[in-house]
């Protein structure tokens, strides 16, 4: 489904991604782990098409076709979904209006308002969201947990093929984490692929990825299958990440 080939990106003149290779097939769950600043979020945003990250080398293929020239909304139309680490607050726009607009923009099938509302209400219940949730302005004044659940709700309604979850687990308490993980598990099937980006093993205990990649300094330094994932669960990824080398500040 997704092939990332020798991907290099720059923000302004700083190189962030320095040759990423990644292949994700339909039905698979992948996880990328790594410390802050390793380029995990940059990879997610670059796949989605954020204008700040210029691809200087390499390519991204979705179903064998390059998507580098596609606009952000076109990539979404082709089935890519990014759950944001920090979902944006859009004041004055109701969550339900936003969701309905997005659904209309993305697919030809236009479900009736009644069906749409019912579907949304059902999913909200499963996620333990209050019924007023969708009457509030998008992410405005939401708690950390509500924001993350809101991202999952969007995923469920928009039905993407490739789901990228950028630190979906941060800011969630244990109950919310379980609810979110359950929703992701239920959504996942042989036609969808999931890429989880995280610092922590915790969420992986619920989602059991097929592959785990360790990323540092803009590169994937180690990848492995389920066994590797288990080993990481036990020992953490710190062993694979080279300690950051830095110069001592010069003293006068």
């Amino acid at each position: 489904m997704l092939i990332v080939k020798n991907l290099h990106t720059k923000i302004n003149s700083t190189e962030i991604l320095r040759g990423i290779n990644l292949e994700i097939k339909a039905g698979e769950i992948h996880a990328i782990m790594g410390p802050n600043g390793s380029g995990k979020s940059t990879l997610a945003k670059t796949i989605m098409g954020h204008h700040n990250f210029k691809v200087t080398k390499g390519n991204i293929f979705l179903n064998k076709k390059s998507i580098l020239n596609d606009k952000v909304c076109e990539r979404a139309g082709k089935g890519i979904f990014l759950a944001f680490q920090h979902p944006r607050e859009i004041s004055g726009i109701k969550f339900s209006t936003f969701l309905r607009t997005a659904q209309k923009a993305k697919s030809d099938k236009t479900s009736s308002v009644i069906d749409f509302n019912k579907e949304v209400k059902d999913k909200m219940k499963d996620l333990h969201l209050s019924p007023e949730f969708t009457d509030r302005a998008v992410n405005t004044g939401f708690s950390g947990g509500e924001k993350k659940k809101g991202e999952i709700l969007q995923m469920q309604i928009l039905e993407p093929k490739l789901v990228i979850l950028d630190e979906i687990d941060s800011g969630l308490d244990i109950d919310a984490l379980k609810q979110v993980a359950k929703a992701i598990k239920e959504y996942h099937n042989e036609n969808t692929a999931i890429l989880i980006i995280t610092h922590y093993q915790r969420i992986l205990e619920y989602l059991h990825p097929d592959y785990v990649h360790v990323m540092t300094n803009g590169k994937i330094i180690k990848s492995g299958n389920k066994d590797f994932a288990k080993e990481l669960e036990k020992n953490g990824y710190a062993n694979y990440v080279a300690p950051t080398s830095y110069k001592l500040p010069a003293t006068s």
Partner: protein
Amino acid sequence: MQTFADLNREIFNQSNRSDYLKKYKKGLSEKLVIQISKSKNEPEWMLKHRLKSLEAFYEIKLPDWGPKIDLDFEEITYYANATDQKGKFDSWEDIPEDIKNTFEKLGIPAAEKKMLAGVGSQYESETVYHNLKKEWEELGVVFEDMDVALQKHEDLVKQYFMTCVPIRDHKLSALHGAVWSGGTFLYVPDNVSIKQPLQAYFRMNAPGLGQFEHTIIILEKNSHAHYIEGCSAPKYGKEALHAGCVEIFVEEDAHLRYSSVENWSKDTYNLNTKRALVGKNATMEWVGGNMGSGVTMLYPCSILKDEGARCDHLGIAFANAGQVQDTGAKVIHTAPHTSSKIITKNLSKDGGKSIYRGLVHVLPQAHDCTSNINCDALILDPDSTSDTFPDIKCENTTSEITHEATVGKVNEENIFYLMSRGIEEEEAKSMIINGFIEPIIKALPLEYAIEMNRLIELEMENSIG
């Protein structure tokens, strides 16, 4: 059936034939002022008032602040009557065809069908269509064209006319006093509540024609009303002037909401004066949208004259290419325990310039007042600008005034977020803008809210490369 929402900008920009204008000369003179008054068969005091105003107009200078007013007062036609006959028409069928077409394009009959409480529309300087639902008339409500009200309710008009906005307020109010024509007169007696909005639709038509409608609204004790007006003027080559005047009197415990959507064509000067006197425990709400005009200077004013008076000023201004929207609010707290709230949302695009200019003045005797001012501006591209000139004068120590202002661009991360859900860039921007103005829009009745959103969408079209 055409509704406001289906309108496109072209409709506002079409001009009907204006042969009738040939009868009226351009420019200002004592002779013209006398002619206006005589043709309307006005009482002597009104003619005197007009002549006194004309004198003041010649004496007073244009304001030395604000946007540049590049206007030749001798090039303006001050009075024209679009129909050969005088007075109003009682039913829709009696209205001449081309005037009817204009109204139909503007959606007036549709609005009428929606059972709005009354429709008074001004075409050129005479009102040609005025309708008021019977039940209100029986309650003693007067909703009339201003010229007709002067004939039918002379004493009432005389009691209030230009007492809230005096002739010598500024040059344009003096000009208005001399050449005013048409407008709305609304009187609501004690304890009467009008549930449905009362609306009037103003429109200028002929090139170089100024419009000087005068509106008086009186709400007696414990009465409630919502008055709405929308304005559009067709596009034409000459600089036209609009200098209307609105005087509002809200008595004890009464509640008025005054909403206006002003969409004059982009070559007009909109130099309007609107002011309300607010009585004990009464509430005055201003809701305004300014989309049109080349230059707008408009600062609705509330004078909170008795204890417990309240006012809300909600405003949107959209400055597009070549436009200056110099708008804001003015609140004078002259009594204790009075409160005011000002919320403005300014947008500027394609080199447009939007300015918030406001004054909140709390006098020494007005103890324990509160005022909250909140002005936000959104600048849609690097060519456009926005300014804020808040003037706050508080002359006692027990009053509390807060002021918040933000100026920003449309946040690119927010656009990215919306686009990542499959929404096109243009629609994403529109959504963010609609969200930005939402606090104002939600105060408007549904048809007007839709019209405002639609007008903003029209302004946004072709704007994103």
